[in-house]
């Protein structure tokens, strides 16, 4: 983990510069290079940030599981920090998905929300990880905070596929309101899929950069907490106050 930290420190500026370059280019590609979708019009351009954000939030929640498992196995604080930071970012990216989704859905499907498989699973996933963060915040004084949240993090991750399957059965039995297949998956022209691929890379780089920044910040917070504890100990011992 120590060497990983050193790697992270050297990667941070690279990713920061990368994100700073990639984001404007991706915006240019979205609005000027990718052709206008014939049926949906300009609103379809949400797609280029919506889908990558969804994929990245999955990646983040996967990292929560990895961090949680590794913490329980190794008891190294850094893994706990990784899990907590990934959960924060996952919730943010998932919120982006949940906000851009209805904006896109309203003009194309006619409604803001439908209880479709992917939508329901995403919403529940978001709820679970918001719960995870609340647990982490509220258990601050508990000495077992890291183990508690690690256990819940693993539970959440195990639950996501089960939720997905149960909602899928649920929907397949009920009548479909919308033919998702015909509207939801537009055939992409080459320029569109190139733009999409570029945005995917952009969002991933952005995620990686913010993750490393946040991780560094979390480590600093920890150090400050340790120093503060140390000072308090000293003050108590010397009877200065």
């Amino acid at each position, binding site marked *: 983990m120590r060497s990983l930290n050193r790697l992270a420190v050297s990667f941070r500026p690279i990713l920061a510069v990368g994100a700073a370059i990639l984001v404007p280019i991706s915006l240019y590609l979205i609005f000027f290079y990718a052709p206008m979708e014939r049926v949906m019009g300009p609103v379809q351009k949400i797609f280029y940030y919506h889908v990558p954000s969804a994929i990245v939030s999955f990646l983040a929640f996967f990292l929560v599981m990895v961090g949680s498992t590794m913490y*329980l196995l190794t008891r190294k604080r850094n893994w706990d920090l990784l899990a907590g930071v990934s959960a924060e970012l996952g919730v943010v990216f998932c919120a982006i998905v949940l906000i851009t989704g209805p904006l896109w859905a309203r003009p194309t499907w006619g409604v803001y929300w439908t209880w479709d498989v992917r939508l329901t699973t995403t919403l*529940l996933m978001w*709820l*679970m990880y918001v*719960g995870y963060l*609340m*647990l982490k915040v*509220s*258990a601050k*004084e*508990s*000495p*077992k905070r890291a*183990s*508690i949240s*690690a*256990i*819940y993090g*693993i*539970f*959440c991750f*195990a*639950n996501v596929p*089960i*939720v997905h*399957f*149960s*909602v899928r*059965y*649920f929907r397949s*039995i009920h009548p479909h309101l919308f033919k998702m297949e015909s509207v939801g998956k537009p055939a992409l022209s080459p320029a569109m899929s190139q733009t999409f691929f570029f945005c995917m890379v952009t969002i991933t780089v952005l995620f990686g950069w913010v993750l490393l920044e946040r991780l560094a910040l979390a480590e600093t917070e920890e150090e400050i907490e340790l120093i503060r504890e140390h000072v308090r100990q000293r003050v108590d011992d010397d009877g200065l106050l």
Partner: protein
Amino acid sequence: MILLVVLIIFHFALAEQVEQNPQLAAGAFWVALFFAAVLGQSRTFVAERERGCLTGLILTPADRSAIYVAKVIVNLLFIGLVEVSIIPLFALLYQLPQIARPGQWFLLLVSVTLGLSIVGTLLSSLGLSARNRELLFPILLFPLLVPILISAVEGTVALLPDGDLATSGVWLRLVIGYDIVFFSLSIMLFDFALGE
């Protein structure tokens, strides 16, 4: 007791609709039961923790998972007790129609209750502080329970007169799968939940 209150509230909220389609009654029944089970389970380990009994239990040479399994059984029995008293009452109040395969529904009931106690027991073993127990426990537990809530309601609806009998088995299998996944996870993680 809370179950009865919830059932009565549901009756006022849904009165006329329930008479027309009994599917709504299935939803009301399971939601009420889930609420009661979630609220009841948050205190699973409180007595042991407050009086230091848990430390004693951990120090016994027995395998730690035995404590977990025992607690799951206790919660199972408690929820079962609630069910035994509430199901006749529910059938009476809502004029519940005949269920197609009572045996299968009973199996569904048992496996759903087992799922409730498996996940609820592990979450309550985490030892949230008193303030968090009231607020946070349901927030943490309900999203985890969504798959079995869906299965319980849909499995029941499938067994009602107008239901699709062919799909009823799917829901039962889903709940059993859920139980297996979370029971194995809980056995593995319970050690960490208790701490040193």
